[in-house]
């Protein structure tokens, strides 16, 4: 096209626009307070059933928490808060060899399909947790890891499974269930029945039904479940197990989804799930928990990356709430958003350093920290921990994200736990935070010099293989660099390359030390720490074995103890651990929560579901 033509059409366009478009001035109307809250999460939804170990991820847990109500929840102070709207639980019998807990559903509670919630709905918890029941019903042995259990549940082998006696009994009015244990189990609330499950829908799904039942059909299905349960009907449980294990798997949900899968008793019901978002709408029949304060639709945008994608989504109003573990840059980006409030908090996940003291696998461990080497290794361990730059790590890597972060004095009672101050002053960990890093490193060098008199600057006689993580983990890479520099001053030559597949090498004798994160999922009597310190337990990757610690763990795990005893036993165990100088906490993982300032009620909690734990109080103020 030539220039003239172009110019002409341009002029024509301009005049046409001015003629054609005479618009009216419109001002955005100020709508009433919003009733929809939008949350961003980085992982993606996979299943409606979180009892299945493979589906135990944050987003599934949040959806489950929003759509079902149990007997209790954790608050932001690690306290268990009972949900008396749904029902009650109490310890009815407590004598030697007999410990009973009675769960009672309050009358009038209903599922979203209108069926009443009864004690029968509590019985499934036993089916998915009791090995004895599975065996008695002729189902595959859940403890045999080579076969898939009928109900592929993560609850088998737990405290409940070990101590439950017989089957829970249903009361005459069918509203209560009594569970009997062979001893006063610790944390009987946590380890008992968490909440109801709509067993009538499970029966109907197993029978191939695809529509909601009538009241009579629902009642008949519940009755059938009770009779299947009492008679241990193998075929029925095989069919129900199949539904329970695979039927609730779903990456998309829409109007064609079997409505029986979506029946629940929570404040919200899943309306749809697509590749982008999960849409939850208020459950019209909800009466199993605290009433909602104003949010009638909850949307979870899934698969949104940490960092700038989330920050810009909040800034643009695409979402209202975000929680994640971003970098310092991303925190700064979030704080720059005028319409958002940013809260940094600590989760119950902590980074720690642990030293190998004995072998975990078939290869014997003879490295510098081996306990079998006596005083020499004890000195070297203490020196290594003294020279470990914990304060540096916290101030350089964590405080930019969470300014309140501190070097951990105790890992059994983490900061936020009311016992933290007492525990950290009692267990003896102050040795590792007293003075400056320079003075601690000097003390460390003195200890090393006892055995290697020439140790010092430029002479690092003690070689340490340190394991920490994969190359993509930039925070740990920075930690490793700080550690290498600081330990060199105390005579340690630390080799710490990034390692792919490092998780599988935690039990290897080739490494003298590891630092990584321990992620706590509850706050029971043993603080989930016995698995790490008791002889031959699941996350004991150091080969540590000590009679004092083992004895304390046995006490903490065998019975419900008064709070003061729990604290005393925890301190006894941790004092021994600190004395043996092989394990120190470094920092708590920082969580960052950013939310639309107009949304009120968002208070992050340290335990899962840390963001939505109090969703019923959320509401928009403008």
């Amino acid at each position, binding site marked *: 096209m030539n220039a003239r033509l172009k110019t002409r059409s*341009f002029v024509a366009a301009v005049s046409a626009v001015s003629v054609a478009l005479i*618009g*009216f001035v419109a001002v955005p109307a100020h709508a009433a307070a919003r009733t929809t809250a939008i949350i961003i999460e980085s992982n993606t939804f996979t299943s409606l059933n979180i009892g299945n170990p493979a589906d135990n991820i944050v987003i599934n847990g949040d959806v489950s928490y929003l759509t079902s109500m149990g007997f209790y929840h954790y608050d932001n102070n690690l306290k268990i808060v009972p949900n008396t709207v749904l029902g009650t639980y109490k310890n009815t019998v407590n004598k030697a060899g007999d410990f009973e807990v009675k769960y009672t559903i309050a009358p009038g509670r209903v599922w979203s399909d209108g069926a009443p919630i009864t004690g029968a709905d509590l019985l499934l918890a036993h089916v998915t947790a009791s090995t004895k029941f599975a065996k008695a019903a002729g189902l595959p042995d859940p403890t045999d*890891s080579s076969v898939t259990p009928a109900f592929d549940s993560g*609850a088998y082998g737990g405290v409940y499974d070990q101590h439950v006696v017989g089957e829970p009994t249903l009361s005459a009015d069918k509203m209560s269930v009594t569970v009997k244990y062979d001893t006063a189990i610790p944390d009987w609330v946590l380890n008992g029945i968490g909440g109801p499950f709509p067993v009538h829908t499970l029966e109907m799904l197993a029978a191939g039904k695809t529509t909601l039942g009538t009241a009579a059909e629902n009642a008949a299905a519940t009755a059938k479940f009770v009779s299947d349960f009492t008679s241990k009907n193998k075929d029925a449980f095989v069919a129900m197990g199949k539904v329970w294990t*695979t039927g609730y798997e779903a990456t998309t949900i829409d109007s064609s989804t079997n409505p029986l899968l979506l029946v629940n008793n929570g404040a919200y019901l899943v309306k749809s799930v697509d590749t982008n978002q999960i849409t939850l709408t208020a459950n019209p029949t909800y009466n199993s928990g605290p009433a909602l304060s104003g949010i009638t639709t909850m949307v979870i945008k899934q698969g949104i990356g940490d960092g700038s994608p989330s920050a810009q989504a909040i800034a643009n109003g695409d979402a209202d709430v975000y929680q994640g573990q971003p970098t310092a840059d991303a925190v700064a980006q979030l704080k720059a958003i005028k319409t958002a409030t940013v809260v940094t908090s600590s989760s119950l996940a902590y980074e720690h350093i642990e030293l190998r003291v004995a072998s975990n696998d078939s290869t014997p461990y003879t490295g510098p920290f081996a306990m079998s080497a006596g005083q020499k290794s004890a000195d070297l361990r203490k020196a290594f921990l003294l020279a470990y730059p914990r304060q540096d790590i916290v101030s350089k890597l964590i405080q930019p994200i969470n300014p309140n972060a501190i070097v951990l004095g105790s890992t059994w009672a983490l900061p936020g736990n009311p016992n933290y101050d007492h525990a950290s002053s009692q267990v003896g960990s102050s040795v590792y935070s007293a003075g400056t890093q320079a003075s601690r490193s000097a003390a460390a060098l003195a200890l090393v010099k006892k055995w290697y008199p020439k140790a010092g600057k430029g002479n690092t006689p003690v070689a340490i293989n340190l394991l920490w993580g994969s190359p993509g983990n930039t925070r740990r890479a920075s930690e490793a660099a700080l550690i290498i520099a600081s330990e060199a001053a105390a005579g340690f030559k630390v080799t710490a390359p990034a390692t792919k*597949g*490092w998780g599988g090498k935690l039990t290897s004798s080739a490494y003298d030390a590891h630092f990584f994160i321990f992620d706590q999922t509850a706050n029971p009597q043993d603080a989930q720490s016995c698995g790490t310190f008791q002889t031959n337990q699941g*996350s004991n990757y150091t080969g540590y074995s000590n009679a004092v610690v083992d004895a304390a763990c046995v006490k903490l795990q065998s019975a419900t103890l008064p709070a003061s005893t729990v604290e005393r036993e925890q301190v006894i165990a941790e004092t021994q651990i600190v004395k043996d100088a092989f394990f120190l906490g470094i920092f708590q993982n920082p969580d960052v929560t950013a939310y639309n300032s107009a949304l009120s009620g968002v208070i992050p909690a340290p335990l899962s579901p840390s963001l939505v734990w109090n969703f019923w109080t959320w509401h928009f103020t403008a």
Partner: protein
Amino acid sequence: MFAYIGRRVAILLVILFGSSFLLYNLAAISGDPLEGLRGSTDPKAKAQIAALVRTLHLNVPPPARYFMWLKGIGGIFTGHFTLGTTRDGNPVSTYLNSAIPTTIRLITMATVVAIIMGIAVGIISALRQYSRFDYAMTFVAFLMYSLPIFWVAVLLKEYLAINFNNFLANGKISPAWIISAAIISGFFWAALISGNRKKVQIIFAIAAFSTAVFLSLLSLTKWFTHPGLGPLMMFVLGMGFAFAVTYTSTGFNNKAALRSAQAMPIIGLIFYFPVEYIFSKHPGVTPIALMFLLTIIVAVSTALFFAKIDRGPVIRTSVITSVLVGILFLIDKLMKTWVPYINTDAIHFRPIPTISQSNSLLPAGNFWFTFLDTVTHLVLPTVALTLISFAGYVRYSRGTLLEVLNQDYIRTARAKGLTERTVIMRHAFRNTLIPLTTIIVVDFASIIGGAIITEHVFGWQGMGTLFNTAINNYDLNLLMGVFFVTSSLAVLANLAADLLYSALDPRIRVVGKK
């Protein structure tokens, strides 16, 4: 020919087998799928580890495990084809089924726009070799080429989403913006049209002035909050299209083509209100498709009416014009939907999102809302992808055209006395397209592979995201599922490109044996 294809397919199968075996084993030894669970202090973690080992066969060494996976693929012959399950227990095929359309939707648009713009700009800069425009475009192309997409995405989100949405709150363009846009536009048109100093200055002044007036009008009329074309504007634009298409397609000397093309916006103007009625009363894909079909029929009939001899070029011209006018109708309708759309609670006056591919809160069942919602979600990723991929096409088409222009047959065509337009469009441009075609075929195959970073930044759950998730979670079956789809398409596209090349270029022939 068939022997050639057969041999190629056999080689491809060997390549696929070898590469998948390598990838499977490398991926299997590169990470520990149980890593996350090992750091859990939950007593149940032990059971979870056991369950994962059992379902993913982690106790089987990777080379042997590969054949268990291959057996699922081999099931294609027995009707038991399976790509296995992911570590969360869902079938890999479920994820692929939802990811493939997402990726296609995300990248097709960007690729098509990049190809059209890239070729157009490349050709213009080849024709004006060593001009200001050529240098400017070369600079822009290299600049775009070197931009990291995550950074482009952040900027686009900041300016085209967050700031644009803020701007929509009052819809007023500030004088600073108007002045800078006017200057940029002046430079652009001056560089594009070129000429002597005086001409350049005049063009600069005209372009800058018209842009400033135009934007001021848009600002004053609050056009951005109440956009629309209206019948008159559509007619004017349609006439512009008619001239432009005729010029490139046949030249203005072909009066029949020009008249036929000009008839299109006139017919459009007549049918403005009927079409509007159908759009409102019978929304949906089928009515739109039928109307496009009708448009093409009308265009062909009109062309036949105007042209008595040599009808082909006339038909082509009027069909292209009519389709462009049809697209104007769609744009007009979308603009009319804009006001009610941004007024919904779900949008709340912030129409351009930074994440996701749809908004589930919109009132269901409103076709035009859904359509517009798809468009608004596509805007940013499409612009980002177009910006960075268009540079390659610019450079490639420029280079190819320059090479073609040096060929003997171009000199012959000029010597015959053909017009410059005919030489360029018919003799040079068509030959330029041959090598470009093969590139485009391979590009489209790689589309399925997804754009890992783009999808991540914009929160789209496409193939790139699946690949990323698979790697981060050490989800071997998922990784192999993505690999299976992308690698199969890649090798097939290469085969298709080779065959296409031989079909397009008579100098090249495929033979069965060496």
